């Protein structure tokens, strides 16, 4: 490493919506910010999302993925962020030292605060252990989206989609438009995992059948997918004998969940939450490692890019303050835990410092519900609540609470 190590106040790893927003927010507070992204084009997964529906929340407009990304790229550029694309971070030290690699160059940089915004990867066939052969023609929905929208490749002609995650739903419509036959979407849960608007606009509008409480129980075809066996699953998650039927297809798309991509974080000593697979953070989005912050899909999976970007803004602002020496979060040991109670899958942040005056909590319910009351309780005191007409695990819920004299751990419940 002949060149001098460059120093920054804040380094953001990942240039998707959360990372771009974090970098822009930190830079607009006067911090010297570097953003490192592995792709040639900033914007992360937004670049392959050529459909619209982005920006309704953040801009009150309907934008495509690339348009939405462009807004944040401009913000980051205008704020003076040093943008480094085509560059992969290969290691991160708890002290803030980063080694990265790009064509013709390995380099090191250092920052007072780090924002993790690496996003997520898709759950694969191997992880969910679908029995059968391992032929060509099994793709995760996001990879299929890239191949379709950015590589001009036809992934197959007769497609079954396993999982009703949003990318799978979007791809059902996209592949239909491109002349492929989308035979069915299969979902193991009794309710869809994607957003209700995507069920309507991507499946119902095109008369694509959705089989709830079903899953693929065998993949046939030694060389290329020839058909899949689908079985009905009961309430205990067991396949019902005799319920099997085969669907002839040449392609199986998987939209079976996203996993925050925390290999880099884990090696830097960041403690991960077993439920979210993301870091555990305080109200300022700082992880257990002082100076390392986390936001967007690498922290927890978001349903909207708008939410990921907003979270990025908050984390970026905290990181800039940290670089200035203003620490929003106390060390883990001196914090008060925030827990997911009845009916709640997880809550971000997982802890709050006594010195914090308010905290914005992001969480999800465990199953679909009608009229729902969300309560935040500390000891016997209710410290915040909200009413929802309906709640769905696919839709993130937020609640802001004031923090005064907490009696003990905060628990969020719904009823």
């Amino acid at each position, binding site marked *: 490493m002949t060149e001098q190590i460059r120093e920054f106040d804040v380094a953001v790893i990942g240039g998707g919506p959360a990372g771009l927003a974090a970098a822009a927010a930190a830079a607009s507070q006067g911090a010297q910010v570097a953003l490192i992204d592995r792709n040639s084009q900033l914007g992360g997964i937004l670049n392959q999302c050529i459909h619209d529906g982005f920006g309704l929340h953040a801009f009150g407009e309907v934008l495509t993925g690339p348009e939405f990304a462009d807004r944040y790229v401009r913000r980051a550029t205008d704020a003076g962020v040093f943008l480094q694309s085509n560059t*992969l971070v290969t290691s991160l030290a708890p002290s803030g030292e980063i080694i990265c690699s790009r064509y013709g160059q390995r380099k090191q940089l250092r920052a007072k605060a780090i924002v993790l915004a690496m996003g997520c990867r898709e759950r*694969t066939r*191997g992880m969910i252990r*679908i029995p059968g*052969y*391992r*032929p060509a023609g099994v793709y*995760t929905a996001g990879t299929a989206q890239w191949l379709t929208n950015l590589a001009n*490749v*036809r992934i197959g002609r007769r497609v079954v989609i396993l999982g009703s995650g949003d990318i799978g739903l979007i791809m059902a419509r996209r592949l239909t438009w491109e002349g492929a036959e989308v035979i069915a979407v299969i979902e193991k849960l009794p309710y869809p995992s994607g957003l209700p608007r995507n069920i309507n606009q991507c499946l119902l509008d095109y008369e694509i059948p959705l089989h709830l409480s079903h899953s693929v129980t065998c993949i046939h075809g030694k060389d290329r997918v020839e058909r899949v066996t689908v079985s009905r699953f009961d309430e205990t998650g067991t396949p019902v004998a005799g319920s099997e039927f085969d669907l002839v297809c040449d392609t199986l798309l998987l939209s079976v969940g996203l996993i925050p991509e925390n290999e880099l974080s884990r090696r830097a000593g960041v403690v991960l939450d077993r439920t979210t697979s993301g870091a555990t953070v305080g109200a300022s989005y700082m992880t257990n490692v002082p100076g390392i912050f986390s936001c967007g899909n690498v922290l927890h999976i978001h349903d909207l890019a708008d939410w990921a970007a907003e979270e990025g803004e908050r984390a970026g602002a905290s990181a800039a303050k940290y670089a200035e020496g203003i620490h929003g979060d106390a060390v883990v040991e001196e914090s008060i835990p925030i827990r997911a109670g009845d009916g709640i899958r997880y809550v971000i942040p997982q802890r709050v410092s006594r010195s914090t005056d308010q905290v914005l909590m992001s969480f999800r319910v465990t199953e679909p519900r009608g009229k729902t009351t969300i309560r935040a309780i500390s000891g016997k005191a209710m410290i915040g609540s909200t009413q929802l007409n309906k709640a769905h695990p696919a839709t993130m819920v937020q609640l802001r609470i004031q923090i005064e004299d907490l009696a003990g751990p905060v628990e969020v419940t719904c009823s």
Partner: protein
Amino acid sequence: MPRLERPTDQPIPGGGSMFDIVLIGAGVVGSAIARVLSQYRCTVAVIEKESDVGMAASSRNSGVIHAGINYAPDSLRARFCMQGRKLLLTWCDELNVPYKVCGKLIVAPSEEEVPGLRRLRSTGEANGVPGLAIIGPNEITELQPGIKAVAALHVPSSGIVSPYAMTLAMAEEAAVNGVTFLLECEATQIRPVDGGYAVDTDRGTVSGRWVINSAGIHAGHLAQTIDPEAPDLYPCVGEYLILDKQVGESLAMSVYPAPPVGGAGLGVHITPTTEGNVLLGPSDEYVSDPETTSCAGKTADQLLEEAMIMWPALPRHLVIGAYAGIRAKRTSPSVGGFGDFLIRQTPSADRVVHLIGIESPGLTAAPAIADYVVHEILHANEPLVQKPLSEVVHRPWSTRFDDLPEEEKERLVAKDPNYGDIICRCEGVTKHELLHALNNPLGVKTLTGIKYRCRATMGRCSGGYCLPRMVEILQEEHGWEPDDFVLRGPSSPAFAGRLIEERHD
């Protein structure tokens, strides 16, 4: 239209030309024989029905270097395992193939299994295996934390090797030293002709003065085409689960159960790989289809359950993949257990040599089997002339960039900027390594071939990250068409053509 050259474009050398030796099957044994033969002045053709070498049992096994504790002292398995282990380590050094002598624990979950450990120890000692010791729970924990057992047999000379790297490295070195590999070419019959033997294939006839049948699971019925007394083989599938490299950080050595009596395998074991993953398996189930590589969901659950008896805290949520391989068993389902290796010269045609039932420890034994076949059968019959050392090209396997120290990485990036371009995040594969893999001497261009050569698509995301990058590089910089992307061969196309044909109006 596909534009890439395919193995089938290469014509079968017919027209009365005769090779000195025709090898059928390019698994680990066939490739080892090819490597030994490539050091002699003789013409060799290797016939392989798949699109690449080592595509069947040779890449679908535990990747364990066996020490020699499981085989009766007079057996060929014992002999070739003991000799093969030594040769394998030498060959790995010569070929730069990753291996590690990490040792193995064979554990007894209860007192009942302890006599089984003693039996293994005495068999091992009779075979000359060094350092065997039966140890108690404290010593077990010292060697490998987290293992639940009352006792274990520690086998320090056992190890792990990358089985596919081994096979590929041997075959590729043989190829650069003049061995002809005929891929996508399936042998159907061996018959005598003037001056030698003809091997009929689906692409024509290849003739040789000698024929060596190392066709793995197909060796039995192929042998019977010229040697009716040759025995049958019984396919027995073994399924494995692959665990994330995160798990590998806490596994120092292989952990085996005491072998099930009369079982077709050695029992479900937990073993690290040279790349840092962990394997669980194999199951054992006799099947009718010798080509089956299907995995059953129930089996996966069983593998996890059995492994967790030995390692209760095994992180079962970190499974990233599965595969299945076929054992070429000489014992039928009703007999069970293991038969011995059979190396048989056809009584009526002694220059047709069959290698039958080379199941476990075939990987460890392969170099010794090759040495035996070449020196004690071929060379003893008609002396082979060794090439001068200066004529033998050395072709070591490439050390993975990701495994190098930082200074070495910087040196390589300065030499070739493509080393800086990391195309596979899970396995840290660089663009240089991708292009090197594609430029292999066997001319293999399948996605699986690329995977085994550089590990792109082999990591935890199964290609979610690197497949798009490979498609981009190969389409834009190397002129590949969608139809050029195949998984394992021409019958497994990855794509169904272009989405939108380019317009030229």
